[in-house]
């Protein structure tokens, strides 16, 4: 590390840079050019000794190319003033080298925006997190937001303006746009993705006003989240959109609505919902979640009661509920009551009773995959239950006059040209819309990638599309708050935003406004009285949220829609197209973090699968993990089959967004055969990565549920990389659960029996449920190695963490935030298959099962739950054939290093590379690690991660290569770019995303969670600076948050100082639900868990008195219910 440059001291070593920052000139015209020395010498610059190849490239690229291209000729001075965020530094405060700055910005989404706080290190954004000050989301963000930073540094990003294959400049491109606009008689269609940007709306209005019929605007999205707005508008006859207030709901029924996962804004919904699941004490109220769905979604996985139903049958469910509430649902020709079994109606009756009992506090939700009629019915159901205006609000929206992709296809003849603002209709347009016709007519397009599906050079101006962190914009969040999209860095490749395109189109060559000007004037128009600086400073416009329509103003204007669903015929399957949890609709497909993050349900990485239920797989003769050919009409797709627990029968889950065909290094990749390492898993064939494209099976964008289609197994095996192969918890008390009733009972018992002063007895809850049979040994043989030496401990800070399993919904946001914070490399599909994924934080997902036959009852009249038989040697290969997986309960557990006080890893490391620090953390000295891996073997939680290869330096396809087999690698090592095997961009671009506060580990080194110790140290320094002579240097909860903690929308993770009696973590650990995983090992984990509590409704036909995991535990341990206490006593002395 170079010594920090002093303020104003210019160390300008080179004029050339790969990137330019605008973060450096806060309120100043002149700024120190400190960015040059951000990396060790020679790493990020084009220094004195740049090679001949580089030079030629540079010359070629700079022919008529001012300041564009990868080589970034010339450092352009920043153009605008950006304002850092308020909570860390006051506006205008000077930059301090080495101290990260924070800026408020927002990630625009289809139907809103996620307000964010972006961390800037030496002028480059390295990390985002939710903006905690913005009231509309309360700091929540989903995994996509955390991952989006990597898209900025995607080496496959488009980098050049090209026209007819020739390199072009941004200025030329803008000139061309101005010409297109001003040319008399030419008719232009704009094809755009969804956006809520008021600036875009204003520009469109202006263009329409100026050019009238000469222009047309068409919006295309592969996934139709606008359905919520359309359905509400249709139902109530005015332009409104629903806004769910989950925090106010105590009974929620989700009809195929995955509000915790696949719905847009899931981060905020999770945040709201988790508030109703917090149990500080047993008497607290807790909400109840019912879910009716076909695919096992994250929402279904967290539901207290879940009913499997075909996706198309959801309409029947809705109409059944509506009719029960006295709403006349006109029936179609096939009738409405067909299709629901007695079991299902009994379930719905009991659920409806619960909803009725919670009138005004219940909420029925319908998901984006459902047709409009279902949504309208659901609005009526909520109305009948008195929920409208209470748990669901309706916000007025501005109506828009844009067409759909289908409209554009129809109107194509009317236009001379199409300007594409970043849609890839060639890929996701759907089978019946001929994307190539539109592409042929396209004359200008904003493109994300150098080479994607629709890349073409014929007559098209290709312009690189700017990332939201490098361009100006604005958006409305889900509650209507106006947020700015503030760039942190000047466009890396001089990329262009859609606002710039529109502004250029309307203006002449001379008075084009920049993105900044557009956004600022929109702001001035919306809030002329408000301060622009303050708006950027806090990242939102105070009190700008939309006022909801009052309940009195909500009148249904349309008739009750008729519902007609034909029963599924034998052999027929239903195709359900769904947003992928990892790559969205494909927009994150080239993002390594997204590809490698395990799907929260299947735990598959790098691929998508056709998910199918156990019974349907048997009926259709589909084999788990084998390829199948799926036909629908003319189209066919081959993809692997995955038998998914909890999936409804007769339907296939088809996650979209994979199977890209362009030259994308992450999304579309193939592993070469390896003559040296013919790993058993891969054989010698080439193995494709990046999944399968189901878009061709859809006729139109937005289509989600399709009946018909034929599927047959082709018998070919396909290797899938899953991070968790074993589904069952084997009856081990790892994730401890209780029902709310049980919890309350046990607490009452505790209150009467136990002396509350005794610390150990605070952990009474799991013990009392018979889950603590391997409880800590009271009379310890050995001295506590940490507590034995009190002089080595800090008496100011002792760190600890508590994870509330009742709040964790398993959304993966923490996993990606951790990856981003800690420079965790991706390892690729092949390595994941070998079990070498590097995530410091993982989410363990177990299925717990019940007996398949619901007719069998126990003496209390409840469905009998049988122990799951271990299938021994073939367990993992046969688990998908077992009956218990049909209706499983799902449990999630975030797992990372638990920081044992008596850490088993420390005593076995021969070189003292992993040691205990004074603040109770188990730390890794990476520089000291020689890589014996003994620590990993001795870790009972298996949370340590070993760098089996040089993941940070070698491209994924070169991991197995050695300079012995591939001499060019030797030049990588020497740093000789000219002779190296690496692509030019892989040298530098990927490095920009790294967090300079955390070291990047080389191969052969063990790594693991360190409670974000870099953050702790920074917080300590900041606190000391602030404290001055006052001596107030103890960190409080507000001073320090780990990356996972701040990423958790559900607030499931609490981290803090155990010596600070006011800290949240102390309060959490005092909760009686606290337990330690594997506590019998007596390692003294600093990360503890709060047991999960389920809230089943005893009136439901599928009620359960104990969670399945508890039943499993008791069955596998031979504990009968009546012997609980006896066993507990007997085994207490382990």
């Amino acid at each position, binding site marked *: 590390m170079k010594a920090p440059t002093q303020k104003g001291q210019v160390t300008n070593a080179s004029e050339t840079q790969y990137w330019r920052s605008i973060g450096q000139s806060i309120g100043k015209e002149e700024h120190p050019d400190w960015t040059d020395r951000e990396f060790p010498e020679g790493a990020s610059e084009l220094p004195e000794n740049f090679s001949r190849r580089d030079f030629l490239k540079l010359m070629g690229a700079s022919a008529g190319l001012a300041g564009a291209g990868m080589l970034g000729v010339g450092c352009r001075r920043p153009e605008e003033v950006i304002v850092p965020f308020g909570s860390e530094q006051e506006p205008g405060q000077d930059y301090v080298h080495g101290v990260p700055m924070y800026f408020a910005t927002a990630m625009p989404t289809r139907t809103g925006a996620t307000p964010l706080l972006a961390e800037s290190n030496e002028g480059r954004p390295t990390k985002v997190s939710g903006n905690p000050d913005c009231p509309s989301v309360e700091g929540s963000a989903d995994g996509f937001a955390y991952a989006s930073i990597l898209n900025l540094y995607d080496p496959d990003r488009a980098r050049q303006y090209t026209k007819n294959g020739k390199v072009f400049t941004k200025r030329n491109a803008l000139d061309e746009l101005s010409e297109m606009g001003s040319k008399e008689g030419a008719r232009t269609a704009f094809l755009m993705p969804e956006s809520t940007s008021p600036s875009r709306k204003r520009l469109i209005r202006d263009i329409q006003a100026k050019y009238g019929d000469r222009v047309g605007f068409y919006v295309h999205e592969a996934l139709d989240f606008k359905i919520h707005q359309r359905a509400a508008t249709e139902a109530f006859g005015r332009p409104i959109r629903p806004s769910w207030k989950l925090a106010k709901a105590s009974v929620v029924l989700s009809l195929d609505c995955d509000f915790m996962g696949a719905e847009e804004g899931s981060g905020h919904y999770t945040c709201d919902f988790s508030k109703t699941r917090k149990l500080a004490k047993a008497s607290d109220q807790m909400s109840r979640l019912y879910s009716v769905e076909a695919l096992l979604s994250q929402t279904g996985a967290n539901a207290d009661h879940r009913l499997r139903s075909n996706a198309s049958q959801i309409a029947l469910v809705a109409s059944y509920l509506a009719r029960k509430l006295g709403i006349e649902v006109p029936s179609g020709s096939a009738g409405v009551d067909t299709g629901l079994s007695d079991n299902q109606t009994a379930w719905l009756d009991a659920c409806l009773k619960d909803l009725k009992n919670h009138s005004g506090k219940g909420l029925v939700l319908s998901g984006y995959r459902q047709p409009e009629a279902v949504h309208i019915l659901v609005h009526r159901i909520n109305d009948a239950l008195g929920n409208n205006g209470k748990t669901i609000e309706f916000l007025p929206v501005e109506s828009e006059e844009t067409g759909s992709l289908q409209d554009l296809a129809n109107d194509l003849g009317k236009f001379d040209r199409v300007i594409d603002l970043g849609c890839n209709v060639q890929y996701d347009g759907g089978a019946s819309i001929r994307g190539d016709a539109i592409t042929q007519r396209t004359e200008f397009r904003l493109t994300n990638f150098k080479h994607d599906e629709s890349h073409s050079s014929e007559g098209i101006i290709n312009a690189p599309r700017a990332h939201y962190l490098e361009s100006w914009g604005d958006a409305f969040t889900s509650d209507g708050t106006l947020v700015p999209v503030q760039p942190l860095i000047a466009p890396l490749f001089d990329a262009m935003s859609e606002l710039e395109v529109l502004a250029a189109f309307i203006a002449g060559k001379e008075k084009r406004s920049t993105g900044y000007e557009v956004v600022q004037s929109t702001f001035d128009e919306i809030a002329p009285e408000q301060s622009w600086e303050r708006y950027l400073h806090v990242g939102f416009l105070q009190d700008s949220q939309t006022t909801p329509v009052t309940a009195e103003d909500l009148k249904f204007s349309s008739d009750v829609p008729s519902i007609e669903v034909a029963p599924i015929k034998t052999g027929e399957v239903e195709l359900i197209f769904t947003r992928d949890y990892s790559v969205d609709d494909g927009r994150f497909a080239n993002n390594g973090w997204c590809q490698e993050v395990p799907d929260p349900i299947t735990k598959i990485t790098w691929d998508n699968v056709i998910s199918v239920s156990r019974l349907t797989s048997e009926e259709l003769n589909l084999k788990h993990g084998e390829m199948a050919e799926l036909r629908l009409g003319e189209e066919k797709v081959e993809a692997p089959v995955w038998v998914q627990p909890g999936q409804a029968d007769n339907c296939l889950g088809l996650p979209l967004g994979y199977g890209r065909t362009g030259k994308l290094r992450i999304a579309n990749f193939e592993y070469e055969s390896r003559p040296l390492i013919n*790993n058993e898993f891969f054989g010698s064939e080439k193995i494709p990565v990046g999944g399968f494209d189901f878009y061709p099976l859809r006729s139109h964008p937005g289509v989600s549920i399709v009946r018909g289609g034929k599927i047959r197994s082709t018998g070919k095996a396909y290797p899938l990389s899953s991070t968790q192969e074993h589904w069952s918890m084997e009856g081990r008390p790892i994730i401890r659960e209780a029902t709310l009733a049980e919890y309350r009972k046990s607490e009452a018992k505790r209150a009467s029996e136990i002396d509350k002063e005794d610390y150990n007895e605070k952990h009474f809850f799991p013990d009392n449920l018979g889950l603590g049979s391997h409880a800590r040994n009271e009379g310890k043989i050995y001295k506590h190695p940490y507590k034995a030496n009190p002089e080595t401990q800090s008496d100011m800070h002792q760190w600890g963490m508590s994870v509330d399993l009742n709040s964790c919904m398993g959304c993966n946001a923490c996993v990606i935030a951790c990856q981003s914070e800690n420079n965790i490399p991706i390892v690729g599909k092949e390595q994941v298959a*070998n079990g070498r994924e590097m995530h410091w934080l*993982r989410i363990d997902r177990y299925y717990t099962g019940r007996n398949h036959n619901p007719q069998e009852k126990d003496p209390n009249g409840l469905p009998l739950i049988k122990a799951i038989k271990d299938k021994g040697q073939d367990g993992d290969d046969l688990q998908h054939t077992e009956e218990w997986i049909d209706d499983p309960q799902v449990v999630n557990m975030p797992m990372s290093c638990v920081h044992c006080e008596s850490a088993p890893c420390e005593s076995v490391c*021969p*070189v003292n590379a992993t040691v205990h620090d004074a603040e109770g953390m188990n730390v890794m000295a990476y520089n000291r690690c020689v890589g014996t891996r003994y620590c990993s*073997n001795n870790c*009972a939680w298996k949370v340590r991660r070993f760098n*089996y290869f040089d993941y940070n330096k070698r491209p994924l396809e070169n991991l197995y*290569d050695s300079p012995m087999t591939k001499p060019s690698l030797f030049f990588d090592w020497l740093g000789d770019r000219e002779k190296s095997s690496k692509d030019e961009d892989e040298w530098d671009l990927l490095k920009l995303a790294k967090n300079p506060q955390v070291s990047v580990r080389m191969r052969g080194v063990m790594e693991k969670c360190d409670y974000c110790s870099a953050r702790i140290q920074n917080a300590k320094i900041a606190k000391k600076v602030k404290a001055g002579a006052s001596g107030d240097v103890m960190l409080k909860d507000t001073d320090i948050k780990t990356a996972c903690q701040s990423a958790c929308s559900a607030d499931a993770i609490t981290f803090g100082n155990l010596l600070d009696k006011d800290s949240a973590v102390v309060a959490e650990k005092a909760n009686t639900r606290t337990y330690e995983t594997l506590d019998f090992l007596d390692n003294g984990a600093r990360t503890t868990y709060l047991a999960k509590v389920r809230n089943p409704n005893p009136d439901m036909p599928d009620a359960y008195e104990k969670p399945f995991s508890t039943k499993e535990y008791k069955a596998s341990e031979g504990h009968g219910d009546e012997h609980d206490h006896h066993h507990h006593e007997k085994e207490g002395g382990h």
Partner: protein
Amino acid sequence: MSLEAGQPVVQTTTPKELVREPLVLNNRSLGWITNQVVGIIEGDMPKWWNIAFGVSFVLMLMSFGYIGYLVTTGVGVWGLNHPVAWGWAIVNFVFWIGIGHAGTLISAILFLLRQKWRTSVNRTAEAMTIFAVICAGIFPGIHVGRIWLAWWLFPLPNANAIWPQFRSPLLWDVFAVSTYFTVSLLFWYMGLIPDLATIRDRLRKNAGQCKTGLGKMINKLKQFLYGLFSMGWIGSNRHWRNYEKAYLLLAGLSTPLVLSVHSIVSFDFAVSQLPGWHTTIFPPYFVAGAVFSGFGMVLTLMIPMRTIFNLEEIITVRHLELMCKVIMATGTIVGYAYGMEFFIAWYGGNPYELYAFKNRAFGPYWWAYWIMISCNVISPQLFWFKWCRRTPWFIFVVSIFVNIGMWFERFVIVVTSLHRDYLPSSWGYYSPTQVDILTFVGTFGLFMVMFLLFIRYLPTITIFEVKAVTPQADPHTVEGGADKVKGGDY
């Protein structure tokens, strides 16, 4: 003979004379023994030696090549993964270290116990020990992630005052194995000195027979080298007195090492908290297993050697039989340990422990477990039958089984315990890659290269000690009157 009434039976029955089998058959003379042993070195090596050496050498180079590949690429070229962070490298390490146990046991413990039969086998067994420890030493060295920093395991003073972690069994390993290697090497070399002097003297005597100039030069070079390493041994009384004392001391020093090395190797596992590793039975069980595997390897090497070099009269069937008995005894101990592990897993009542052992026998690696059981527990039991332990080809086959079984024992311990431990979410499966397999195969090449060179240049049998156990060595025996001597075991 007929019995008359009243006559005691005892007086009429001549007790059958119990004859101990001689240690050297056919009453060979002392000179014959020297000729037979040194003759191997002095003569030209047969063609098979050249072929075997060539093959072994190629295998060795292959192993070095794979190690080079490993070092330049990363430990990921092996099949290791996250639950199973130790695989073949550690299995091979323990396997080779185990083999290295027979030599020192034979030469030290049997020496102290005055088991004279050891004299015919100790030299080869000790050589085998040293070569096996060399092979073993490679693996912990190369299995670490950053091989170039492996020296940090040694407690070297440094400016940062960072010391190794003295609580780590891996560090104890470094001390145990290096001590064992050093002492074994010294012990072996000590024992070689009188024989090296013999060779040196014979070279001088044979110098005249060298016809060509090159032959003469080679003879001179050999004289110099053998002379150098025999350290001026002239067999004087004083030499012998010092020698005997030193040998006894080294034997005393080596004896605890035989027990300690594998005990400490077993601590690599026993000290951990992993079910399947965390077992107090490990030290004795590992030592017994090591002796078992060591004797297995000694037999594997000696049976062909004695036939090829006509040493059947010195390494007799009796020697083989005695070694078979050791194999049977230690194999039974190992079998008992396997059973006891299961009993304790059940009796201890720890469900994780119980699962680990059930999983060993019936989980995904069941085949490894049952190979281990059949090779280690069942096959040595055949030695209850006299024919089995006296038929060299049969012993050879069983010794191969023992080698295989003991490799699998280590595989079972290392891999099956790791692949499914506490949290089922982390369970995985480990399979080796080509690099794992061929690096290991290559170490046999290294071992054989060293062993073949040993045969080529050093006396495979301790000439002077064997002579000492022949009847002729007894001062009361008249040379040539050996036919009156019934047993050779004085």
